[in-house]
């Protein structure tokens, strides 16, 4: 039924809301496939349904109709408990507002999903330190989130999302709360994470972040209006800035 290499699929995915003006489809019959190891970004104006789409793919919201599969599992057939299990083990989610626990240390925040999953501390301790080193925060392990900058907090959130080695890393406006310099830092991190083989699917209005993806899906009014494939990174750098060469 599903593509064996697909990390994530959506079929005729629809989420409708009732409003005073009638029923509105925030997400309208979306079909998509994200291959294992692929990096896909969704862009579109506010209210185009991109965040709702991400919530449906993450299993945070249930669709009105249609299907989502994560690593071959159809989320619609799962009970709430099973769905929570998929959310825990198969998808890692990064939010715009970081959502870190202020009273826990950085390392404890990263370890939290493993703790909730009931894993033995010895099995995840090394993984937490490895991830903190990978996001450049090895020396901040014992600090509290409040002592970190916005960009550092988002890096902690990305490490936390990766702690259980999810099939897909999902991110909702991961640079929505940080300045331009920091968003380039986060961009570099997503690129490295993807380079290490992680499937990444993110929703953003930050064109720089979308430019790092292999594919951009442009959403309009709940639908995927256009799809753009970007050239592979490492292609010869072309002169892209025009100067008035008047010496």
């Amino acid at each position, binding site marked *: 039924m599903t593509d064996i290499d697909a990390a994530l699929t959506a079929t005729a995915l629809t989420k409708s809301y009732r409003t005073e003006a009638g029923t509105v489809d925030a997400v309208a019959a979306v079909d998509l496939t994200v291959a294992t190891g692929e990096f896909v970004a969704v862009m579109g104006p506010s209210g185009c349904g991109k965040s709702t789409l991400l919530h449906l793919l993450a299993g945070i919201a249930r669709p009105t109709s249609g299907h989502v599969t994560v690593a071959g599992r159809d989320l619609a057939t799962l009970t709430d408990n099973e769905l929570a299990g998929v959310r825990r083990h198969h998808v890692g989610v990064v939010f715009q507002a970081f959502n870190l626990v202020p009273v826990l240390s950085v390392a404890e925040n990263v370890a939290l999903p493993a703790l909730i999953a009931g894993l033995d501390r010895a099995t995840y301790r090394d993984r937490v330190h490895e991830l903190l080193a990978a996001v450049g925060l090895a020396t901040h392990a014992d600090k509290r989130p409040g002592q970190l900058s916005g960009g550092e907090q988002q890096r902690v959130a990305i490490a936390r999302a990766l702690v259980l080695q999810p099939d897909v890393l999902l991110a909702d406006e991961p640079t929505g709360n940080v300045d*331009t310099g920091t968003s*380039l*830092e986060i961009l570099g991190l997503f690129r490295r994470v993807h380079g290490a083989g992680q499937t990444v699917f993110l929703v953003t209005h930050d*064109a720089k972040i979308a*430019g*790092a993806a292999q594919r951009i899906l442009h959403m309009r009014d709940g639908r995927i209006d256009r799809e753009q494939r970007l*050239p592979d990174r490492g292609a010869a750098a072309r002169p*892209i800035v025009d100067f008035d060469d*008047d010496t």
Partner: protein
Amino acid sequence: MLKYLLLALLAERARHGYELKTAFEELLGGTWPLNIGQIYTTLARLEQDGLVEVRLVPQELLPDRKVHALTETGTKELERWLTEDADVQVRLRDDFYLKILAQSAAGVGDPIALIWGQREAFFRALADLAGQRSSDTTRPATALLLDAAILRVEADLKWLDLAEQQLKPRP
């Protein structure tokens, strides 16, 4: 402008022609490729104007090496340019602004398709710029130049969103 950037690189240290070309292209993050002819033509003019002088560096077993160095007049000219207010121009004559303008006046073709074509080109440019910007070997001055280019592309993408809003057919 090329002239002042070459003076700045010679103020850093004396260089020979090819070295100057490499240093220039690195500083500009590969966004402004030069051929060696342009370098030599400009150097000849700078020498003629007394801003740059040629020095001979003796080498063992090899013929003397010709390097270009900044003269005192050259240093003064560079300082003058650096303290002068930059010429601020809001550039609105880019091909894509004019195409969209012309399309809307003539009513020929599909404005939305035109916008999408531009948008895709800008995303490709942005991907290149951001990739270069996040490279560890980019020097700080070059990173700033790339930031300027990224901000401009982002502004152009926002403008395309506005154009799409206004030009899309009403349902």
